[in-house]
């Protein structure tokens, strides 16, 4: 068997069928699917069982333990050369496995092959993401380790469903269970520090965002920030004395600071001024560039102004102007 597909499932009844179908539709058939149901209460496990996919094993957690924990448990079942992790809401194009496995077959030194992703949101227009935006195709299919790492320090270009990894990577590193919103980013950073990354500009995976969910709710922002801060701490210890590229931690801190600043902007637009102010303070607390400190300060001042009742009507135009300047 060449590919183990791991799918952690928690209350995924809405989209699960689409995701399972995209596995069944793969042109590449040398896979085994391992589903871990994390104590769903919406009948997700039954949907998986009824899905009727061949070569499928279902495990059920007796209690809910979290997605990273579930994937780490499932990893014990990964006995193939390659592993893909597909979340319940995301889905592949039929060529995904064939293309990615081909890439890794031809690049024995790479740990990861990544495609581009279409980001789907219920109300906003679709966008594309992927490492190809930072490492264009003209430069070759294989992005060298140090370049891939430098790109990933700036931000997380890689969405989970776009990745096919060598199983070896996950034997070496488990997903860090203490940072549920950033453990994928941490994994790609570690992988890039180890080896080159195969980049595909083709859109072979689809990533579903939600209006109100774990990954877009107001709750998320600050917890994601704490995850990213924690990621910096973990890598600071891991890379102490031998940073894989020059100034890696500084670069990562700058990248994280921009992420936090961007999230503060989103929070202002959503009307969550307290959350935004908190984000700006975090950004200022870790800022490594004077420009970032100034941006945080300016943001705090702007929030102070926006708090004035007369300004409430102007909130949207102002944040939109801010976004254009950004």
């Amino acid at each position, binding site marked *: 068997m060449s590919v183990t597909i791991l799918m952690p499932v928690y209350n995924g009844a809405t989209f699960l069928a689409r995701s399972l179908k995209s596995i069944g539709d793969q042109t590449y058939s040398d896979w085994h699917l391992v589903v871990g149901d994390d104590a769903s209460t919406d009948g997700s496990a039954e949907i998986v069982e009824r899905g009727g996919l061949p070569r499928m094993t279902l495990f059920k957690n007796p*209690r809910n*333990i979290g997605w990273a924990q579930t994937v780490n448990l499932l990893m014990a079942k990964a006995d193939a050369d390659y592993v893909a992790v597909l979340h319940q809401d995301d889905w592949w194009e039929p060529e995904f496995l064939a293309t990615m496995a081909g890439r890794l077959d031809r690049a024995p030194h790479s740990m990861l092959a990544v495609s581009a992703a279409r980001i789907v949101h219920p109300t906003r227009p679709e966008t594309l993401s992927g490492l190809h935006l930072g490492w264009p195709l003209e430069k070759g299919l294989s992005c060298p380790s140090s370049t891939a790492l430098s790109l990933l320090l700036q931000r997380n270009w890689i969405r989970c469903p776009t990745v096919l990894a060598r199983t070896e990577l996950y034997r070496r590193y*488990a997903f860090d269970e*203490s940072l549920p919103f950033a453990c994928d980013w941490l994994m790609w950073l570690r992988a890039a520090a180890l080896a080159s990354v195969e980049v595909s500009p083709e859109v072979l995976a689809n990533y579903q965002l939600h209006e109100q969910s774990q990954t877009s709710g107001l709750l998320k922002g600050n*917890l994601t920030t704490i995850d990213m801060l924690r990621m910096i701490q973990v890598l600071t210890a891991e890379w102490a004395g031998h940073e894989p590229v020059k100034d890696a931690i500084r670069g990562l801190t700058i990248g994280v600071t921009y992420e936090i600043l961007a999230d503060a902007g989103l929070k202002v637009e959503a009307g969550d001024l307290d959350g935004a102010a*908190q984000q700006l303070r*975090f950004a200022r607390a870790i800022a490594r560039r004077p420009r970032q400190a100034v941006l945080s300060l300016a943001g705090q001042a702007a929030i102070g102004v926006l708090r004035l009742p007369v300004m409430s009507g102007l909130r949207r135009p102002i944040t939109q102007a801010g976004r254009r300047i950004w």
Partner: protein
Amino acid sequence: MSRVTVLVPNYNQSAYLRQCLQSVRAQTLSDWQVVVGDNASTDSSLSVIESLDEPRIRTVRRPRTIGWIANVNLLLAEASTPYVAILHADDWWEPKFLETTVAMLEAAPQSLVATSAARIVRDGVRAEVVGLYQRWNPGRGSTCPAGEVARLLTPRNLMPAATLLARAGLYRRFRRYEPALSLLGDWLMWLRAGAVASFEVTDDVLANYRIHGANQSASAEAQNLWAMDLLRVGRLLQMEWSGEWEPYPGAAAAIGAAVANDLLARAVLRMEGGDPGGARQLVRLAWATAPTAGQRALSRLAELGIVLFGGGPLDGLRKPLTGFARRLKPAVERSLK
């Protein structure tokens, strides 16, 4: 059917596991069963369990090592008795622990938790005693009411897991320990539980809480993982404890202040340990998260102090100053209240 399930999460603790399990066997209350959750140990843990040849002890094994919190959360599914205890493989009980705590809960049907005091054993040496009793005046009876428990535990966690016997209802109401907290998961559980339910408190020292492997906790400290867990507990409770869910007046602000205070205290320790860079990081986080203007000002002041006295020509003043800051701290905390 037995009345108590003792859940024992274990990862490579064969050196202590026997003492732990023997202390359960030595309980004066015999109406218990043990489920060891072995987190894919690579040492001789399993043969230690087998050698005890005890039918009331069974083992579930994880196919791969996962975080200890996830191991505990999976173990919770194994308990179907009215009472549940979690005893880590390196901790152990005095013989009367179960008898005492079961009796306390039977006498107080409204309480979800009974908690004793614990002796801390640091690297094999018996050290201080901790417990909720330290902040609860026993003159007021054994029942510490809902809300008050959360208030008493807000400044810091006084309850090692080994000091607790919980009603199974606790884990029906709060389904899991927060999966992302690698160090402070217990604290958050007690705070959540103490916000809605009363606890039975005794000052009897019935549990032993072992602190060992200084390297491990030192590395957690060095990586600031404590700080990260603190920030998360603070954020989660500030969201949960707003409005009508406030367990006591000013709870959300109090937990925020406690987090900032703890970060500042750790910064002082860092400074004393000769790590001004780490100390500065911590005071900046304290500043970012502090809910009161007073704490923010204090954090700014501390940062200024670190910049002035950390490393430069004024380095000689560092020790006397941090010593002074430490003595000053209680007074400052009182004035901020």
